[in-house]
């Protein structure tokens, strides 16, 4: 085993100047800018859902989109704050109010539209496009966040991964509601919330391993 003074010597010998991280909120805004860019690109390539103007006049829809967007923004800020060693872990709770509103709107819509869910008219068949949209937004956003937060590997990978997963899921869900035409809210529930749970769970379970893998590159 190397002695501590020797270790210090080797660390000192290998200490080129480093660039300080910008404030976490600024970095979170950077990531959100990237997310906005992704959504804009999708809007150009993918058509917006045809009934968007109509839906934007419905308060539940607007509240739902606003809440999922707010969840994404707050969760992104929370992840960047959590990745800094001396910030409080209570920041993990930052997106919770928005998350609560978001889940409530999904639940509310589900309750109201429950009657329309006849076995025959479930709008399946559109899943491939839906899934492609999820992957198209989710993968680049996850990668960007992983790379921006790779230093968290040694510190609090699980916490950061949970909150990062929530940020990606919320932004993806926002994209889904803008671009994709879902009438049955059970499908919205499955897609939106299922993806969110999946991403957050993936983050929580594999965050430690993924972060240490990325940090080694």
């Amino acid at each position, binding site marked *: 085993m190397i002695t501590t*003074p020797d270790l210090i010597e080797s660390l000192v010998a290998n200490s080129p100047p*480093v660039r300080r991280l910008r404030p976490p909120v600024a970095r979170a805004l950077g990531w959100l800018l990237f997310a906005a860019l992704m959504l804009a690109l999708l809007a150009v390539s993918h058509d917006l859902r045809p009934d968007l103007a109509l839906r934007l006049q419905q308060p539940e829809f607007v509240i739902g989109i606003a809440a999922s967007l707010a969840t994404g923004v707050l969760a992104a800020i929370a992840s960047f704050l959590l990745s800094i060693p001396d910030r409080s872990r209570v920041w993990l709770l930052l997106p919770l109010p928005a998350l609560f509103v978001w889940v409530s709107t999904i639940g509310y819509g589900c309750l109201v539209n429950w009657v329309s869910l006849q076995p025959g008219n479930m709008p399946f068949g559109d899943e491939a496009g839906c899934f492609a949209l999820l992957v198209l937004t989710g993968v680049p956003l996850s990668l960007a966040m992983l790379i921006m937060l790779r230093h968290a590997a040694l*510190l609090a990978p699980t916490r950061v991964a949970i909150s990062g997963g929530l940020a990606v899921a919320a932004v993806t869900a926002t994209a889904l509601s803008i671009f994709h035409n879902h009438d049955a809210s059970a499908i919205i529930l499955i897609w939106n919330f299922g993806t969110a749970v999946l991403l957050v769970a993936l983050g929580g379970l594999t965050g430690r391993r993924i972060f240490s893998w990325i940090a080694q590159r």
Partner: protein
Amino acid sequence: MSSGQSSRGPALSLVKERSAARSAHELDWSIYMARAQDGDREAYRRLLEEITPYLRSLATRRVPNRSDVEDAVQDALVTIHAVRHTYDPARPFGPWLVAIANRRIVDGLRRRGRTGARETPLDAEHETFAAPEANYHEAASEARALREAVERLPLGQREAVRLLKLKEMSLKEAAAVSGMTVAALKVATHRALKTLRKMLGRQDRRT
């Protein structure tokens, strides 16, 4: 420490002075780290050397096994090195340092807990020392094996070993006691040792 203060309230003033000293340290450390981030190696060396005892005291408080304390200190130092760009010089250095150190100490405890579940600790009672009496059990079993081997020797050889080696008689004394000639005793001893070597050696290979 001034003697005038000690009459008023020594405990309080001591605590105050200690925290004042630590915050002074922290300010130094913060400046050192800011310089180290800009590539000042001397400042970095001083910082690492000064925080090492502090890290050690943090680790000693939470790591039960003394030999693991130094591992935890080194782990913390390496981590601090790896994430030194996350320190913001506008913020106090202490919380940053303590957060990293505690994180690594807990991680280390978990890791050692996992390996520890598959290992048996070497306690004081398991330790063996160079002093022969510490290995009494082994020595006793070897002695018994030797005694049994001697018992199995032919009569003349056994007699020779018993008189010359175990009772440590001279050849003349042994000759007088046993009635054998000196030459016969020598030959018997030689053969006895050869037989013993063969018996014990074969036993060794068997076990």
